[in-house]
C-alpha cells in the first residue's frame, strides 16, 4: 500500500512536471503571439500613407516637431531671403533619380520610402524630374555636390523647406540575363535655399531602398535642417 502510494506520488510528480512544461510552452507561445500582435498593431498604427494622404491634419496631431516644422503654410515667408519672397512656398519635396525604369520591386520600395518619409517629416510632395533638371539633380550626389555650396538646385524646387532625394542605380543583368537591382546609391536631405545645410550620402554601397528607409533615422537630421530655417526667420 505504502509502495503504491509512493508510485502514485511519483506519477503525480511526473504529471505535475509535464503539466508545468506544457504551461510554460503555452505561456511562451502566448507571449510570442501577443508580441507579434503588438508589432502588427504598431505597424498598422505606423502605416502612414492613408493617414497622411487622407487627413494631413492628423499627421500634425501626432505632435512630431518635424511635422510642424515642415508645415509649408507657416508664415515665415515675410522675413525670408529675397529669393524665398519671389518663390511660391511648396511642401517638402521627394525626388527620385533613377537611370531608366526602376524594377517593379524597386518601385514598390520607393513607394514605401515615400510613406515612411511622409510620416517622419509630415507633408511631402513627390515630383518627377524634368529632363532639363536631371543634370542638376545628378550633381547633388557628385563628390563636390551640395554641402560645399556649389549645388545646382532647379528653380522649380526652391520654394520647398526641405528636399529629400534618393538616387537609384541602374539595374544590371546577371549571368542569366535577368535585371538585378543595385539598390540606393545616394541620399540627400537639404535646404534648397541653402544647399550647404544638409546631409548627403553617395556611393554604391549596395544598400537597398527598404533597408535604407527602414533605418530612416534621418528624422533628427531633417528636424535639425528645418530648425535652421526657423533660426533664419528669428
Amino acid at each position: 500500500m505504502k509502495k503504491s502510494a509512493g508510485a502514485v506520488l511519483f506519477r503525480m510528480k511526473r504529471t505535475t512536471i509535464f503539466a508545468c512544461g506544457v504551461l510554460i510552452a503555452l505561456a511562451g507561445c502566448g507571449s510570442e503571439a501577443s508580441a507579434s500582435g503588438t508589432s502588427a498593431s504598431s505597424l498598422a498604427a505606423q502605416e502612414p500613407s492613408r493617414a497622411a494622404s487622407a487627413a494631413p491634419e492628423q499627421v500634425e496631431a501626432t505632435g512630431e516637431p518635424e511635422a510642424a516644422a515642415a508645415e509649408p503654410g507657416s508664415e515665415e515667408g515675410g522675413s525670408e531671403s529675397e529669393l524665398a519672397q519671389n518663390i511660391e512656398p511648396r511642401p517638402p519635396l521627394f525626388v527620385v533619380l533613377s537611370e531608366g525604369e526602376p524594377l517593379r520591386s524597386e518601385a514598390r520600395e520607393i513607394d514605401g520610402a515615400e510613406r515612411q518619409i511622409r510620416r517622419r517629416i509630415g507633408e511631402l510632395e513627390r515630383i518627377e524630374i524634368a529632363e532639363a533638371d536631371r543634370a542638376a539633380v545628378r550633381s547633388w550626389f557628385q563628390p563636390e555636390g551640395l554641402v560645399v555650396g556649389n549645388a545646382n538646385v532647379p528653380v522649380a524646387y526652391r520654394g520647398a523647406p526641405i528636399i529629400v532625394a534618393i538616387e537609384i542605380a541602374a539595374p544590371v543583368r546577371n549571368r542569366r540575363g535577368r535585371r538585378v537591382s543595385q539598390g540606393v546609391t545616394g541620399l540627400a536631405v537639404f535646404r534648397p535655399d541653402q544647399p550647404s545645410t544638409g546631409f548627403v550620402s553617395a556611393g554604391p554601397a549596395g544598400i537597398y531602398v527598404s533597408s535604407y528607409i527602414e533605418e530612416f533615422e534621418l528624422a533628427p537630421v531633417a528636424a535639425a535642417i528645418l530648425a535652421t530655417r526657423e533660426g533664419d526667420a528669428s
Partner: protein
Amino acid sequence: MKFRATLVAIFASILWFHVPAQAGDRDLEILVVNMTPDAASDEASRTCFQRVLRGIRNDGTHLLRRGETGLLRLVQRDDPREFMSWPDEALTDAHSRVQTHNIPLDSIALVDCRPSEQSLVVRVSSPSGATSRIRLGGFAVEEHAAFVARRIRDRAWAGWSP
C-alpha cells in the same frame, strides 16, 4: 531516473538550438583615421571624432587606428586635404596592405569633423570595392555623430565575407 535523463536531454537540446552557429565568423576589420587638419582641430573636433569612433565600435567590429601620416603612406598619396576626391582604388587597394592575424582590412573610414565650421565629412571604403562619401553641414553636426557612425558601419559591411 530515466525520466530525469529525458528531461535533461530535452533541455540540453533546446539550449543547443538556441546558440547561433558561429563557425568561420570573424569581426569586421576597420581602420579609422581622423582627417581633421591640425589647423582646424580643437577640443570640439576631437570630441566629435571620438563620438564617431564610439559609434563605429561595437561587438562585431575590430577597430584599428592610424595617424594621417601613416595613412598617406598606406594609400600612397601626398595631400590629405584631397581625400574626398581620391580614386576608390587608393583606399580599396590599401585593404590588403594592413593585416591583423593574416586578415586584411575590410574597410577604411576617413573622418573630418569640424563643429566650429558645422561640417562633418566622411569617406568610407567597403569590402565590395566601392567607396562612399557622407557629408553633413550647416548645423550642429557633432550632435549627429552617432547617426553618421551608423551610416559608416553600414557601408563598411557592404560586401563583407568571412
